[in-house]
């Protein structure tokens, strides 16, 4: 049992996902209970795996007993257990939120569990083709979840997401093909040796790098290939926006880090400086363009979506700089962003239910009508801007320190400018919430009946806000986890 922990992380949610459709034959609303039981089991497995890795070091598992590099290998190291723990925690949080907020259909929870399975698979796999399969499982479940919204708008958003996401995953697959042609292997550890043997200046290796990175960047949603993301986040149900904004891009960015440091390794980045410069340049453009687009939005959820484009630029810039400090910073920001953005989307859902406000203009003067949600929203927004001591500050601080050490001054300038821009769009909202005159009359919502909000929804958002500050204390742990990861990083 203990040997199979790592594969159970994927198997359990897939088995769980099969239960709600079968149960639909007799019972209508058992999806939530099944999903919660499965997510609790997943959390227990994640905890046990984390403990094993923490005490005994890296865990390697050969699926079906076929030894690597011929079979598929699953690998759990420091960064893996961090991401697995994040997936478990966010799923439980979203389930607590969705208990009341819905959707309530059994099929929704089936897709929810498939998404958990896909994300866990992407996190633990040590095989590049297996990563493609889990990327597509994650994608398929995410398209279905986005489409679970009430209107046909969500179907349009899901279709757009599906087409762009599929092109991204296909580019990744094409890159894997080039890597296979160059080396004849798909195992990540084996690839890193054989790619070096094939020569980093080989056309096959360079093309493989370009295609794989481009494909994953589509999934991460950096500018200018982010166009699927604002619609997908804004037009889906609140539980779904909170879930996918917290996890889908996050795990794709993790996969990119895995490809950079475990497959191509830092030797490649040093041998081919243009690859690294290109990645830094794309990340910097994304930081600036994402923030500028966020400032221009009038819909709060779309603003949050564009903010993700900018924040993921930061994370990718940290990974591209590739010094230990910058990678720790990028990882802290990756995890911190997941908690903060998930919490922000969940908070917008509560605010909309209580006050009917969805736009920046509508947020004026409504702080008193939903005090807990708006308070948590403001706290999360400030954490995202990077006000110390929140986790948003710690992540950006380490990335900037890493950039300074590496002498990447343009990155330092862009990072500092982006913080100002982030402040511009979040401070505007905070100011409206507390100091402006209300534009929506209170009775306008009361006439609709005003949807009820459960305590669990508010508790979820408040916990996210507390974590956004509290996680800053976990930075030394994350530092230690990166040390336990199979990464080869730049020397300072």
């Amino acid at each position, binding site marked *: 049992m203990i040997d199979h922990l790592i594969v159970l992380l994927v198997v359990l949610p897939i088995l769980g996902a099969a239960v709600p459709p079968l149960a639909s034959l007799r019972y209508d609303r058992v999806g939530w209970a099944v999903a919660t039981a499965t997510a609790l089991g997943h959390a227990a497995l994640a905890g046990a795996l984390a403990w094993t890795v923490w005490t005994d070091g890296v865990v390697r598992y050969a699926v079906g007993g076929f030894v690597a590099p011929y079979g598929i290998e699953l690998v759990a190291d420091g960064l893996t257990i961090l991401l697995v723990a994040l997936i478990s925690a966010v799923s439980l949080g979203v389930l607590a939120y969705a208990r009341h907020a819905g959707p309530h259909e059994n099929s929704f929870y089936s897709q929810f569990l498939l998404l958990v399975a896909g994300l866990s698979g992407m996190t633990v796999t040590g095989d590049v083709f297996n990563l493609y*399969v889990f990327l597509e499982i994650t994608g*398929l479940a995410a398209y279905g979840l986005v489409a679970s919204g009430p209107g046909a708008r969500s179907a349009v958003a899901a279709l757009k997401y599906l087409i762009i996401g599929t092109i991204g995953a296909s580019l990744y697959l094409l890159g894997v093909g080039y890597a296979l042609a160059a080396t004849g292997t798909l195992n990540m550890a084996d690839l890193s040796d054989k790619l070096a043997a094939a020569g980093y200046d080989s056309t096959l290796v360079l093309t493989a790098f370009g295609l794989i990175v481009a494909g994953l960047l589509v999934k991460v949603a950096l500018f200018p290939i982010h166009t699927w993301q604002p619609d997908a986040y804004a037009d889906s149900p609140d539980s779904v926006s909170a879930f996918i904004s917290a996890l889908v891009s996050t795990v794709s960015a993790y996969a990119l880090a895995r490809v950079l440091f475990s497959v191509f390794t830092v030797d490649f980045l040093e041998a081919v400086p243009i690859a690294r410069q290109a990645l830094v340049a794309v990340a910097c453009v994304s930081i600036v363009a994402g923030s500028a687009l966020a400032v221009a939005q009038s819909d709060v959820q779309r603003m949050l979506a564009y903010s993700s484009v900018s924040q993921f630029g930061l994370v990718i810039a940290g990974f591209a700089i590739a010094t230990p400090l910058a990678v720790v910073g990028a990882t802290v920001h990756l995890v911190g962003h997941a908690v903060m953005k998930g919490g922000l989307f969940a908070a917008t859902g509560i605010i909309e239910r209580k006050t009917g406000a969805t736009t920046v203009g509508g947020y004026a003067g409504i702080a008193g009508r939903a005090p807990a949600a708006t308070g948590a929203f403001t706290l999360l927004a400030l954490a995202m801007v990077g006000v110390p001591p929140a986790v948003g500050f710690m992540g950006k601080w380490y990335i900037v320190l890493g950039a300074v050490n590496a002498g990447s001054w343009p990155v330092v300038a862009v990072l500092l400018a982006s913080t100002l821009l982030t402040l511009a769009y979040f401070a505007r909202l905070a100011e409206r919430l507390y100091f402006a005159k209300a534009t929506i009359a209170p009775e306008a919502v009361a006439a609709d009946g005003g949807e009820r909000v459960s305590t669990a929804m508010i508790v979820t958002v408040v916990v996210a806000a507390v974590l956004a500050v509290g996680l800053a204390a976990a930075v030394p742990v994350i530092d230690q986890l990166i040390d336990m990861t199979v990464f080869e990083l730049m020397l300072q």
Partner: protein
Amino acid sequence: MTLDLLTTHYNYYAVVLLLGIGLYTVIESRNLVKKVIGMNVFQTGIFLFFITLAYRAGGNPPVVTEGAGPYVSPLPHVLILTAIVVGVSLTAVALALVVRVYSEYGTLDEHTLEELYHD
């Protein structure tokens, strides 16, 4: 040499052509169904790429018998079987979404949809 490349690598030209046509259709076509078709053509280009990669002149199926080598690596074929399954599921989900969009808006034209949104 150039002629040699032209005559022996025609599979790769087909790959490039399929990828190009697919991507162009996805970007350029205003019709949602045609976008899905373009997506399929793009993926087919990748399938052909992997299968071509696995070709080996004079190779035998990888069933080990005395003196039967050289063998063809079965790995790319297996990968593509998986990728085809993934492609079929994606097409199914895409078409389901197209049906829902059409029943709601009565159009499959991207520009008309945009106009409907702005009203």
